[in-house]
């Protein structure tokens, strides 16, 4: 809670700010006095709820309490609100009045070591969207992006605005859905065992004009398999070749269609090898070196729904179409993770080890904002002279002036060995 002196200073600051911006609000087509009063009222309201201002403010008791809403002018003692010191940048008002947003990361963006300069030049806070504003300015500038989602009231949207790009990712989960649908029609159209034909038809349908289908299939089969597009028409012309088990195929059928198979194979489609017996008869041209994805996809059967991928034509890959259908979501999801087959790259491991991050995450904590006059160090002993600062410690605000603060730190360096003691 604030002391009376601190509270008075804050009130003074608020009044000073309001008075100085009044001209801009009223003149030159500004929003007007009403908006200004509302601003002041809300500001003071939040300050009271945060405990930074004590008691009713005399001049504003009538106006501001009205503008501020239902909160009585004794909010300092609103102990019902557990003002959690840990959530330094989240005024209890937000938590009280509004449901916490999912993006409730308390102002982490400005904190992480942002030694970004509040240099004089940066006072020209760039208008919405531009990121590189220093320190607190970071959030203030992003605020005026008019956050797309969520209630505007929620102050936690600071971070949400920073994550405006993130929602795009959310489209990801939706992606499987289009992929799900197209396979079903063409699969249903054919007897389940006939993978290739179904695929062919699917191709044709895709060619005819379902735009999403080709992409769907590409997605499933990876780039290497797009080459199938060349085959389907030819393939079709020759009827279809049963794929399930190569050994059990009718020889008569084989006899009838050797040429077709040849054509097919010349198309470099490994998939069309399918029937093992056929392969023994027909000279085969090896396809192009399969894409890495082909190999990857070939290992689990779910990717082999077309019987392709394996260069070893004698191997029978006969996943049921039902399986394929069920499997469709899997490739959709797994493909994104294909980059690391076995394990994640563990790129996040260092995050926990980073002392800096740890130190700054702890910062939910206590904060001192000031200007420094001098910073010196003698061996392991640092000495800083600060002035004109605000300390926020244990939920209390303490202001200090020049010549009033001298800080002496001891750094944990052993003088003898020079080891760091963290």
């Amino acid at each position: 809670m604030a002391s009376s002196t601190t509270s008075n200073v804050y009130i003074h600051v608020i009044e000073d700010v309001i008075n100085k911006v009044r001209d801009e609000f009223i003149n030159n087509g500004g929003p007007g006095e009403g908006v200004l009063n509302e601003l002041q009222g809300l500001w003071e309201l939040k300050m009271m709820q945060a405990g930074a201002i004590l008691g009713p403010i005399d001049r504003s008791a009538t106006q501001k309490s009205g503008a501020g809403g239902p909160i009585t002018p004794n909010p300092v003692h609103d102990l019902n609100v557990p003002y959690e010191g840990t959530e330094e940048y989240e005024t209890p008002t937000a938590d009280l009045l509004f449901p916490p947003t999912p993006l409730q990361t308390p102002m982490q963006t400005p904190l992480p070591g942002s030694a970004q300069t509040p240099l004089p030049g940066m006072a020209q806070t760039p208008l919405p969207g531009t990121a590189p504003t220093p320190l607190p300015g970071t959030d203030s500038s992003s605020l005026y992006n008019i956050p797309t989602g969520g209630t505007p009231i929620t102050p936690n949207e600071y971070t949400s605005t920073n994550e405006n790009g993130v929602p795009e990712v959310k489209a990801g989960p939706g992606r499987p859905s289009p992929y799900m649908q197209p396979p079903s029609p063409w699969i249903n159209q054919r007897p389940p065992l006939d993978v290739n034909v179904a695929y062919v038809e699917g191709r044709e349908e895709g060619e005819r004009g379902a735009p999403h289908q080709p992409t769907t299939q590409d997605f499933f089969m990876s780039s290497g398999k797009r080459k199938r597009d060349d085959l389907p028409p030819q393939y079709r012309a020759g009827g279809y070749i049963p794929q399930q088990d190569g050994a059990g195929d009718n020889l008569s059928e084989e006899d009838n269609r050797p040429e077709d198979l040849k054509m097919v194979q010349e198309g470099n489609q490994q998939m069309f090898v399918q029937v093992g017996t056929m392969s023994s008869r027909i000279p085969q041209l090896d396809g192009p070196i399969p894409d890495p994805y082909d190999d990857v996809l070939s290992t689990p059967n779910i990717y082999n729904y077309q019987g392709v991928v394996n260069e070893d034509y004698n191997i029978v890959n006969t996943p049921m179409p039902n399986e394929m259908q069920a499997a469709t979501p899997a490739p959709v999801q797994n493909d994104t993770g294909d980059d690391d087959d076995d394990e994640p790259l563990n790129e996040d491991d260092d995050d926990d080890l980073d002392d800096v991050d740890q130190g700054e995450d702890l910062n939910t904590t206590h904060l001192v904002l000031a200007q420094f006059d001098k910073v010196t160090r003698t061996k392991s002993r640092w000495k800083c002279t600060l002035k004109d600062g605000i300390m926020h410690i244990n939920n209390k605000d303490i202001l200090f002036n020049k010549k009033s603060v001298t800080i002496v730190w001891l750094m944990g360096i052993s003088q003898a060995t020079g080891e760091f003691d963290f």
Partner: protein
Amino acid sequence: MATFELYRRSTIGMCLTETLDQMVSGGILSPELAIQVLIQFDKSMTEALESEVKSKVSVKGHLHTYRFCDNVWTFILQNAQLKSEEGQETVDSVKIVACDSKLLTQ
């Protein structure tokens, strides 16, 4: 005039920022005007602190992290003791952000 946006991270600064955000989101206030308010806040806050008289405060602790970048010192102290007239506070961790005072006078 150059200002330090440093104080926007304080309680009072955050309250103001939230209020402005609320009003801009509600379309009551234009972003440009909100920025001007914040700049004015920077100035007023700096002036107020200059005129504010406080007792001496000293801080001691274990320096966990120090950083000097873009003329801004950032320290993280652990097990810090802050002594002031009002009493002594002990905190596990405190972050100190300090801007160069000479920049304002230049």
